[in-house]
């Protein structure tokens, strides 16, 4: 049966849905609009080759901050991924129901703590600990540790969901063959759940690249290519947050351009995670 009210409702709701979908285009469009004055071969060449970031002297070398962003994110992944995978495996296969529910609750809480609180804690607890060892404390290492703590739940929650979907007969078969926990996990469960695990790690990478406050608060924000774990570094997101207040002209456009580059990178990672989640599970 065809109702006039349905035609109207469908069109009206469709307008809202279209507006929502257009929001993504609007976000990217505004980033492009505000950075268009520096999107040219000559400007991009300057971003890549200028010696240092001195926007008031019109030197716009973004590479040191790009390196810092990559190293902080990769470092956080290297610390967080093994811990989170171990936690997910323990929670799914080994822990008693009570312990498992405590772990799940803990991960939920960890994911819910605001990044600015992690930043405050990092600045008042982690940074002094590192400073007692190697000054100044606000460093690449502090950023890696705090960021790792923040992305553990992202990896742990997606991975334990993926591990819980591994077909029970596979695990029972493995147990019947007398496999140890270790062989069962590394040989059967992890490979079978790899789609969800990879998706979780890629999502965590996207989150790490986009994180602003916590890194801004503990990394020290000196613009330099990191050469040791104890160097102060400034990442791209922190640079935007620190300089948007007074940036004008090409400087402001350069900040929007770095935001655009970051957004595109994160979107690519999100798409990759989406594909991994769909494709790479146990397609037996």
């Amino acid at each position, binding site marked *: *049966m065809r*109702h006039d*009210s*349905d035609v*109207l*409702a*469908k069109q009206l*709701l*469709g307008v*809202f*849905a279209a507006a*929502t*979908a*257009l*929001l*993504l*285009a*609007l*976000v990217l469009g*505004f*980033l492009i*609009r505000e950075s268009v004055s520096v999107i040219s071969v000559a400007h991009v060449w300057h971003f890549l080759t200028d010696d240092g970031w001195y926007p008031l002297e019109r030197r716009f070398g973004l590479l040191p901050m790009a390196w810092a962003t990559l190293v902080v994110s990769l470092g956080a992944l290297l610390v967080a991924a093994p*811990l*989170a995978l*171990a*936690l997910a495996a*323990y*929670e799914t296969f*080994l*822990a008693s129901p009570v312990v498992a529910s405590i*772990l799940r609750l*803990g991960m939920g*809480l*960890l994911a*819910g*703590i*605001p*990044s*600015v*609180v992690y930043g*405050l*804690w990092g600045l*008042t607890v982690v940074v002094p600990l590192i400073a007692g060892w190697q000054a100044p404390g606000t460093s690449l290492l502090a950023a890696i540790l705090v960021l790792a703590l923040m992305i553990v739940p992202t990896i742990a929650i997606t991975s334990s969901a993926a591990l819980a979907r591994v077909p029970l007969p596979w695990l029972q078969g493995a147990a019947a063959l007398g496999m140890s*926990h270790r062989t069962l996990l590394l040989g059967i469960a992890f490979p079978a759940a790899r789609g969800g695990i990879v998706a979780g790690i890629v999502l965590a990478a996207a989150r790490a690249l*986009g994180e*602003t*406050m916590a890194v*801004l*608060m503990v990394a020290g924000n000196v613009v330099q290519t990191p050469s040791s774990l104890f160097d102060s570094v400034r990442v791209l*997101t922190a640079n*935007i947050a620190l300089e*948007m207040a007074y940036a004008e002209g090409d400087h402001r456009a350069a*900040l*929007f351009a770095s*935001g655009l580059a*970051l957004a595109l990178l*994160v*979107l690519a990672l*999100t798409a990759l995670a*989406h594909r991994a989640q769909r494709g790479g599970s146990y397609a037996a």
Partner: protein
Amino acid sequence: MLFGAVLGAAAALCVLALAWVLWDVARHGLTLWSWSYLLDEPSNAGRSGGIAPILVSTLAILAVALTVAFPVGVATAVWLAEFAPGRAAPVRLALHALAGVPSIVFGLFGSALFSVLLGLGFSILSGGLTLACMMLPPLISTTEAGLSALPSEWRRGGAALGMSRSSLVAHVLLPAAAPTIVAGAVLAVGRATAETAALIYTSGYVDRMPGSWLDSGRSLAVHIYDLSMNVAGGDRAAYAAASALVVLILVINLFAASVRRRWALRQLAPD
């Protein structure tokens, strides 16, 4: 069994780190609470005094965000779940992508669109609208999931009774999915409460009591950032504000859980 012990140790390490953070926030923060802390204006750049205007600004920003995002989000979710005949894929893709956009990028966008182009300046309205954009993806996905979980017999039953799809949605499906929709909205508000980077350049820094929607208002998260980074000797006050923020988020999340549970029970009762 050594392998299992290693896994257990890793899990314990993660939980210990969490406990360490929460313990510090509670130890340095909760101990500074009093009625005057909640009811007074901040003084001495926030080192002393209270957080009353900051709480008001935070709630005002969230109210703007929810007022805008809720109707748009529910309308989109209803379209996706009930009306989209195979045309939903591009919208879902856009939402998926939008959910991954870093918050500082939303901050840039909100500052360029709401503060500069629309002339709202640093204001509660500008910050709230920016947060509304960020809230849409989680809001829509929970609402759509709530609608999709309803039995398809209800849709067929409605059609057999000659109900239009729109009155089926309005009188049967939306009321039935209400607990999940409300809980999802509350959770989205909880997540927005934690937001800092998107607000610094949209709703701004001003820590006075806001007089209108067009005044700048400092959110609790921005307050923590400012005390910690820009105010020498502000760490104590920053921890007090951090404990207030964590408690606020916990209360919001518990409220979401209880809405879902209580409402679900009430719905089951007549059967």
